[in-house]
């Protein structure tokens, strides 16, 4: 199987399926949808087996000429950072398609097609080795997401869709400028070529600012997070899951792919600002989540708070290196941040998915409209409890791994950072279980709740798959860390080498 262009096959397959689905009638579209989901999974499994975890180099590389006039190529390839994210993308997409189709009551074929376009774009972002290809996929992601919120969202969908689009589009121009500048300087737009580019401090700072405007919005880092609660609450269940599980990750992926290796000195210089913002996200947003009365908004804020650990783990390596010169701890921090990216998909993503199933019957997002659901929907409650525990970061579930790794590495920089970030232990438990209590426990007060039905078979399967993922990562995180070990080591070395 070596030598097949698996990455482009995966991207093209998703795109072709999308077009085919739109052009077909419902019955046939359904068959195509599920078959292509299976094919995507198969291709990603092949990619997984082709990948050699003992190398930090780009693998499964492909190169095609694109626009000869401007010397632009299409280069694809993956390393240990992008592979887990590509697997995650295909996995989450499959779960969304199986679980949320029954919740959509109009334009179902277009809904399916949209998610295949999204899958193509997100896989493209994670596998692009060219700056312009990356940019193309990056912008390409926005359109299906915008449509998803705008068409299938709830009442305030058009406001949320526009807010989402403008907010995330805003920084893109700056990123494009930065990419053009880097490409001209490097002579080609290959991203790996940017890494050894000698850049002055001044250049690095400007480039970092440009990158930050786009990546920090996506992650999102405080105070650029306010698009997220609106987008999440108004999006349909599938859209929320994609947002939480994948769209936020591309922002953090940008940190690893661009910010750290391209502008290491600027990152090092301003690490304290970025760490500060991450801590604010963890603590302040954690508190804000506590005050929510809308269940979906609460999950959205908790999602922001958890992503704080990704940016924290990402930028903490500079103070660690400065204060101790200790490489293993920086490796731990970056691996922890990477783990957190993946496990966050199983925490917030799974909670959004489960919430979608509840909303489908209840048609209300307010916590006050619920209560006592545990009696009516025992199976659903059991699943949600697992998701709540992974959101809290209980050991043995996925949510623990990333947070634990980041937290114990931060101490090498300062005890105070660990203490502040560690408050998340208490805060996440507070808002999650406080919500859980109000939604699921207690007597049934609202009459509407007593008419709910427990989840059906296909929903159970989708949630079981998520649960299996949660426990697999929680009990055996090595299955992911060993994929990225070499790449992380390499990344840490490039990021801690001063360019100036």
């Amino acid at each position, binding site marked *: 199987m070596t030598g097949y262009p698996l990455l482009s096959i995966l991207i093209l397959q998703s795109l072709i399926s999308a077009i085919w689905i739109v052009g077909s009638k419902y019955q046939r579209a359904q068959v195509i949808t599920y078959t292509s989901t299976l094919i995507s999974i198969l291709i990603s499994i092949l990619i997984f087996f082709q990948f050699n975890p003992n190398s930090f180099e780009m693998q499964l590389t492909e190169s095609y000429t694109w626009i000869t006039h401007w010397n632009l190529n299409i280069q694809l390839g993956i390393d240990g950072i992008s592979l887990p994210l590509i697997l995650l993308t295909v996995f989450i997409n499959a779960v969304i398609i199986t679980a949320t189709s029954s919740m959509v009551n109009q334009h179902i074929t277009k809904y399916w097609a949209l998610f295949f376009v999204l899958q193509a774009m997100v896989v493209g972002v994670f596998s692009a080795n060219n700056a312009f290809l990356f940019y193309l996929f990056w912008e390409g992601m926005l359109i299906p997401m915008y449509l998803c919120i705008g068409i299938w969202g709830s009442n305030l969908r058009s406001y949320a869709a526009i807010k989402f689009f403008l*907010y995330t589009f805003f920084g893109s121009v700056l990123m494009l400028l930065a990419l053009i500048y880097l490409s001209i300087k490097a002579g080609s737009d290959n991203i790996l070529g940017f890494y050894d580019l000698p850049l002055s401090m001044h250049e690095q700072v400007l480039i970092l600012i440009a990158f930050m405007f786009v990546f920090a919005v996506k992650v999102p880092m405080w*105070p650029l997070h*306010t*698009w997220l609660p609106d987008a999440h609450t108004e999006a349909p269940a599938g859209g929320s899951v994609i947002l939480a599980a994948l769209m936020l990750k591309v922002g953090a992926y940008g940190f690893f792919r661009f910010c750290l290796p391209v502008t290491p000195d600027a990152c090092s210089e301003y690490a304290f600002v970025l760490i500060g913002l991450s801590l604010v996200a963890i603590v*302040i*947003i954690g*508190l*804000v*989540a*506590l*005050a*929510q009365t809308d269940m979906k908004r609460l999950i959205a804020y908790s999602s922001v708070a958890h992503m704080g650990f990704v940016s924290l783990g990402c930028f903490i390596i500079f103070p660690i290196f400065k204060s101790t010169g200790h490489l*293993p*701890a920086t*490796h*731990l921090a970056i*691996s922890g941040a990477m783990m957190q990216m993946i496990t966050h998909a199983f925490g917030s993503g799974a909670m959004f998915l489960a919430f979608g199933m509840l909303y489908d019957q209840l048609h209300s997002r307010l916590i006050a409209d619920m209560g*006592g659901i*545990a*009696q009516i929907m025992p199976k659903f409650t059991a699943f949600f409890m697992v998701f709540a*525990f992974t959101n809290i970061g*209980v*050991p*043995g579930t996925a949510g*623990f*791994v990333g947070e*634990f*790794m980041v937290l*114990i*590495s*931060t*101490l*090498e920089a*300062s*005890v*105070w950072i*660990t*203490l502040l970030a*560690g*408050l998340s*232990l*208490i805060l996440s*438990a*507070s808002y999650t*279980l*406080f919500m859980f*209590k109000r939604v*699921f*426990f*207690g*007597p049934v007060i609202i009459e509407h709740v007593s008419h709910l039905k427990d989840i059906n078979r296909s929903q159970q399967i989708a949630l079981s798959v998520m649960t299996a993922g949660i426990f697999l990562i929680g*009990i*055996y*995180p*090595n299955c992911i*860390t*060993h994929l990225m*070990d070499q790449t*992380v*080591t390499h990344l840490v070395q490039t990021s801690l080498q001063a360019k100036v």
Partner: protein
Amino acid sequence: MIKSVALITWLAPLLGALMAGLLGEKLGPKNTHRFTIGMVTISLLGALYLSSIFIIHSSDPIFAKLFTWIDSNTFIIEIGIYLDALSVIMMLVVAFVSLLVHIYSIGYMAGDEGYCRFFSYVSLFTFAMFALVGAQNFAQLFFGWEGVGVVSYLLIGYYFTKPSAVNGGLKAFLVNRIGDLGLLIAIALIFYYVGALDYPTVIPMLEKFDQDILYLGLFEINGLTLIAFTLLVGAMGKSAQIPLHVWLPESMEGPTPISALIHAATMVTAGVFLICRMSPIFDYSPAVLNLILIIGSTGALFLGLVGIVQNDIKRIVAYSTLSQLGYMIAATGASAYTAAMFHLLMHAFFKALLFLCAGSVIVAMHHEQNIQNMGGLRRELPITFVCSLIGTLSLVAFPFTSGFYSKDSIISAVHHCYLPAASYAYMCLLLGAGATSIYSFRSLFLTFFGKKRFTGAVSEPKWQITFPLIVLAIPSLFLGMSSVGLFFIGNIFGNTLSTSTIANAQMKLLSHEFANPLLSGIDALFHPAFYFMILGFVITLFCYITNHETFNRIKPSLKRIAYPLEMKFGFDWFNDHIIVRSIIQFSRRLYRYLDKHVIDEGIILGLAKRCLQASYTFKIVQTGYVYHYASMTILSLFLIIFFVLYIGI
């Protein structure tokens, strides 16, 4: 062989939990309890086998590895069971009490809607507790630590339609999480110093850092002191020490069998276990030892006093647990780690016994828990009464009972401790012995003696309930006398506990004092603790049996003294009204003003609004009339020519 036995012992309850939880409905209640009990029996047999190796033959520590949790660069964590005297003894106790609680639950939970769920949780708890005590590294310890917390949360909130139960569970989890934060920081500090998390590497390596100073910005602190302090915070959460004790009384909302297992015998002693496990580190930090002495002994006295005014039969036992945990913690503060472990084990038996007796009474009384509505039950419930009496005697440290040996060893260890806080601690522990005696006998008298204060018939519950009582009564009575020599003279823990000079001096003292168990029982007559206990007994006898009328007459005047006790010293009030309320208000304000008002509406939407306004302003120019555009063009043309000609760009 040993390794596979250890792993089977650990994993059998997990299998039971999974079967009961996932297939319980299909299996039916009878098969579910059979299966889970079978699994726990396997654990008990395994634990017996292991203890025969590690206690009788005192083998070297063995690590039975199951798999590698993570192996990333230098961060390697292995999961399995670490076997030494300390972990094996804990496993034995956990398996023993767990098995009895499983059997007891057949009777206690009969007919309950969530029967299988209950058994699943209890087995899961057993598994998590094994993970905690058998951890080889701090990551697995943290897994067990949080795991038992989660199961405790689930079991306290077992009756999830009852708001008080749900709130109790939530409170327990959150308060425990404060302690967990302490433990997590301790783990991070250890990783910072040692670069590894497994005990065999950590403890010898850490001892080399006893002079290391950590700069914390505002102040500086000895690294080991900070580690010991943060570990103590962790222990305080789980072992319910002041001020993190508030969750334990509320945990009584759960079913009684789990109160016996989790909130008396095993989980709450995890903090004591942790301190003993890390005892070499604690011995390097006298400041923290002083703090431990103060916290432990204060809890031992004052929380015992609160127990005197309680009327719920389970809450009395809960406050008694708080007080006894205080004794254990105080013992660790005096570097008498063996005494702390000894009391932990004896307490596991007699406190589990007392809880299960309380449960038996509750079942017999058709779920009445107020002791003011009981009375005279000794004739109807003879087995429960005798077992309660044995448990009570052991709890108040009546000579020759198990509790006597363990508690007396703690009191004399604290008495002979040279730390500045030791004299305060000694006073508290002595007075605490009196308080223990008062609340224990009060509960016993009000429940089993005097007149009946209820209507209806009561009878002894089924054998599943009484059998565990009898089994537990035996060790509560005799185990202390028979094993005290093993602990203090035989030194079963060897060098798994600290071997510092102070710890060794304490061991020597205790081995001297308990050289002959019979003689030391008689020796109690020369110890003040004995007289405090007798004093408590006499007071209670006077108040509730012989001169009940006189007591009732002077009761109103005692109200004022009892007020702080009834308020539980205001901890609950402070937490609910000050801490929780202010956090919730603060979070609401943060959301409303900072997040919504300033960032979203102020900056982001404000920016959008400005853009919109600007575009309206420029709209005026776009009139759509051709002559406006034409005149504009001509005017611009003139301006351009003017600039080009005169300024010459």
